[in-house]
């Protein structure tokens, strides 16, 4: 053999060790620098911005004051707006859980080709522009003779048209639709871990369908429902397009208010404070509920 193979990469000599110790850092360094440069620094600047002063004529003044935070804490407008944000997100989450979980279960019981077809139909919208999907709801809601109202009235469910546009009801329905695929996907993943033989065993022991669902299926897919709920809640609470289009200019949520402060009022420090508060609240809620779920369902995750 004229050229001996480079043994240093095949055996664990000192040079191979050194190489292995340096390689991961060399490979991740560009991405790490990218993230520090354009994620960590801008986020830190935003937090600082929320402590700056602002005036109609003087613009942004780089001083350290608590004015914006004080305004958010004391003006009931902000409390109401945050309360609306989380109320809408919570209701949308409930709807996705109540309808998405049974649908995932039904999908899971379908036979092969139907299963993949309907999975595509239900999950596909996830990749379709949120603006287009919300526009669809605006068309369906539109005015008193919108299709949704005509449909509900023909079923006899309501006597007179309900207002959907520019209301929280409309926001909740449209948000639930936009977020539904996340819930179905999450419950679907939990269902894949479920052993169908346990259901059959319960059936052979004389359990009714209702008992099987309540005592066997539900407890096992509950972690999937809850982790889906966390995803849906955090995305709904920070949603922008749907509340902006359905809610109109009056009915503000955190994301649309921050947008207004930045691009209409131009009070950047106040807008930054709203955004930072939203971020902190969401991180606390997500981390807190994740910890709760993991403790409660330690058995299932093991």
């Amino acid at each position, binding site marked *: 053999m004229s050229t001996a*193979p*480079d043994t240093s990469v*095949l055996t664990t000599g000192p040079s191979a060790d050194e190489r292995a*110790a340096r*390689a*991961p*850092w060399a*490979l*991740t360094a560009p*991405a790490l620098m*990218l*993230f520090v440069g*354009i*994620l960590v*620094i801008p986020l830190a600047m*935003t937090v600082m911005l929320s402590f700056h002063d602002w005036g109609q004529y003087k613009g942004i003044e780089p001083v350290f004051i608590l004015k914006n935070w004080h305004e958010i804490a004391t003006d009931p407008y902000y409390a109401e707006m945050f309360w609306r944000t989380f109320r809408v997100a919570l209701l949308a989450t409930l709807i996705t859980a109540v*309808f998405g979980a*049974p*649908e995932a279960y*039904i*999908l899971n*019981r379908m036979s092969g080709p139907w299963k*993949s077809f309907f999975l*595509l*139909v239900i*999950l596909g*919208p996830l*990749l*379709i*522009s*949120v*603006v*287009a*999907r919300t*526009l*669809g709801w605006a*068309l*369906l809601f539109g005015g008193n003779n919108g299709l949704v109202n005509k449909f509900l009235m023909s079923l006899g469910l309501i006597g007179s048209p309900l207002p959907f546009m520019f209301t929280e009801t409309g926001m909740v329905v*449209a948000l639930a*639709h936009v977020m539904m695929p*996340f819930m179905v*996907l999450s419950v679907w993943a939990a269902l894949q871990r479920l052993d169908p033989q346990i*259901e*059959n065993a319960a059936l052979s022991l004389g359990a009714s*369908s209702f008992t099987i669902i309540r005592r066997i299926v539900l407890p096992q897919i509950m972690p999937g429902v809850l*982790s889906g709920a*966390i*995803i*849906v809640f*955090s995305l709904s609470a*920070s949603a*922008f*397009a749907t509340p902006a*289009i359905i809610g109109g200019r009056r009915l503000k949520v955190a*994301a649309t208010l*921050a947008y207004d402060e*930045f*691009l209409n009022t131009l009070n950047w420090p106040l807008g930054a404070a709203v*955004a930072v508060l*939203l971020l902190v609240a969401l991180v606390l809620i997500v981390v807190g509920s994740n910890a709760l779920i993991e403790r409660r369902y330690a058995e299932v995750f093991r």
Partner: protein
Amino acid sequence: MRTNGPISLVFHTVFVVFMLAPIVVVCLVAFTPDGFLSLPTNGFSLRWFRAIASYPEFVRAFWVSLGLGALSSFVALLFAVPAALAIARYRFRGRDALSALFLSPLMIPHVVLGIAFLRFFTSIGIGGSFAALIIAHVLVVFPFALRLTLAAATGMDRSVEMAALSLGADDWTLFRRVTLPLILPGVVSGWALAFIQSFDDLTMTVFLATPGTETLPVRMFLYIQDNIDPLVTSVSASVIAITMTALVVLDRFYGLDRVLAGKSDAGQ
């Protein structure tokens, strides 16, 4: 496995109608021959699709979105592929923290990212430029590019690499001729999913776009804010058609279930 009873099938039908209704309505209204919104439409016409051509803002926004999506997804991969290889192959101190950092754009609300970028780019003097949009989109689509590349790199059989090394291949040849072709399906799917994310993003981009750099979702959103007419439905229907095409291609290339599983944790 038990089968679905009649109640389940009724529930399923209602559910599917609910999921498809808004999308179908947009596509139906787009073909209206009337000059106003009407449901149901009386007749069929392509006039509102032809009308897109005479509204240059939408056409320009479409090209901006296309270029932005293609370019930012490509740049994201330049950073994500080496990072994915490092995370897939080495156990090193700080590995978990690094993966968490790299996936963090999924957790941060896009409105916060939009504000942070607007503040940052304005203060370094590139606010409102196309370059600023690219940088912002690279960061937002990075997790998707990383995730699919990571999945491919983790499942890769490394014996071929060992063979190439033993035959004297240098690092670059090894990567170009062996590693990259092996992880290519993951890389291409990562690019495609990143592209869709970039192409669809409104919340962050609406803070950064200026009249010259408006993307299609931003243009559509601002248009809807003023009024809703059949023109914006034909634009939306075109966007839906483009996305569907991308979905089919993605499904052929990689399997849609795997792509969607990669997206499922968005927001976590």
